[in-house]
């Protein structure tokens, strides 16, 4: 259950950062990404997958959320 910092990079992509793992990757896809909710399975550009229960209303980035390994 890593604590993940989510923030936008200069290009406007959402970055997925786990300090303890030195993991800093762009999020490739998010299962649920609508005006009502954000979450589900999140896939990173390196192929790693993480899961979070969809949050409603969508969180404001940057923020820190707790993910599960998916």
């Amino acid at each position, binding site marked *: 259950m890593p604590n993940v*910092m989510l*923030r936008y990079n*200069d290009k406007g992509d959402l970055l997925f*950062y786990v*300090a303890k793992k*030195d*993991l*800093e990757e762009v999020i490739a896809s998010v299962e649920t990404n609508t005006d009502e909710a954000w979450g589900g399975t999140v896939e990173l550009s*390196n192929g790693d997958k993480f899961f979070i229960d969809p949050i409603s209303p969508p969180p404001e980035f*940057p*923020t*820190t959320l707790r993910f599960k390994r998916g």
Partner: protein
Amino acid sequence: MSEMTREQTEALIQEVLEVYPEKAQKDRAKHLTINDQEIEKSSKCITSNRKSLPGVMTIRGCAYAGSKGVVWGPVKDMIHLSHGPVGCGQYSRAGRRNYYVGNTGVDTFGTINFTSDFQEKDIVFGGDKKLNKIVDEINMLFPLAKGLSIQSECPIGLIGDDIEAVAKQKGKELNKTIVPVRCEGFRGVSQSLGHHIANDAIRDWVIDPATGKEFESTDYDVTIIGDYNIGGDAWASRILLEEMGLRVIAQWSGDGTLAEMENTPKAKLNLLHCYRSMNYISRYMEEKFGVPWMEYNFFGPTKIEESLRAIAAQFDDKIKEGAEKVIEKYKPQWQAVVDKYRPRLEGKRVMLYVGGLRPRHIIGAYEDLGMEVVGTGYEFAHNDDYDRTIAEVGNATLIYDDVTGYEFEEFVKRVKPDLIGSGIKEKYIFQKMGIPFRQMHSWDYSGPYHGYDGFAIFARDMDMTLNNPCWDSMTPPWKRMGDETAIAAE
């Protein structure tokens, strides 16, 4: 020696690894690589931030060094108590040359060593009582100290002293900021974790309690984060930002104060120089206070220009104009430096091995002088640093993570660089091998190297070292004349 090809470099790494036992060989192989700009993610080619092998000569430091020496140490109006035995603080005292203004011992305390000097009885019975007394003593002797940070050394963690409780109680009693920092040296694999712990301590004990403090801000407030003012670096950077119309409200932590740290969340933009040691707190401030941060690089005119424009792009036209004016103003100055030194340094090859930022940041400055970086490596970088490095260095360049003394020597023998930039522990080995050397941690007691002013000093120092006549005296006269003398003697 001409440039090495990829195959040659690969063969070199293999050859150097051969002396290790099998297990060590396997481990070390992961830390040595050849740069390939096609790779986007460094994790594919290099492993970093892992425990050093027992038995090898690593050049790393400890968590205490990262917290007390790097992050907290330069905060000048606080007293940083090295809590534990006397050695850790004494042998590192004033070693980083973080310049500051103020009256040492009255309102600033940068170069003084404060320690609780643990004895056997403190280890056996616990040192909290002693700490209590020390806080009172410090408060009496140095009433102008704005705060106190308690930097734990190894024994504190081992015996389980509760420094947080003391800090809380005394902080309330004296109404001062007292920060317990759990930076025991044995934590983590290098000083890098010390940076992280120190950042977290700043977050919990300085920034959060100061939320809501009043501050008159302007639209052009920025902070300099991760500049430790070594030889005056932060000052050379600060004047450039101020000239382009920005207001620098805090310096972290070179020549910085507690009040500046507390005001930082009120800035419009955090400018991050040393990414490795202060990215944690920048990320936190972005999340909690919505202060964006950006990395910049003030080494060498090319990078300065790029950075000034990138910083200005975050503000309105007034600042953008200001940035162009600054770039225009300093152009003749740095052009003169390049004209003077480039012919003397052109084509020289450099190997670097520094901490967590300079192995990539300083490359631009060397390139401005026509020099080439043929090998670079970090003591304690993480993968995100290597991600940022790949684009900066050329293809087929040797990259070494947490290099051992043996590897570094062998690499140097084979690559034969004209100049090496590393720390004091490496300096005399390589000088005795006849290779010009500059300390790139402390600028070899020179500096500043940041900013346009720093570049002039940087160029002069490199020339002074590389073209020093002493390097012609490496061969003794009787060997230099060789056979001719022998014949004459007959």
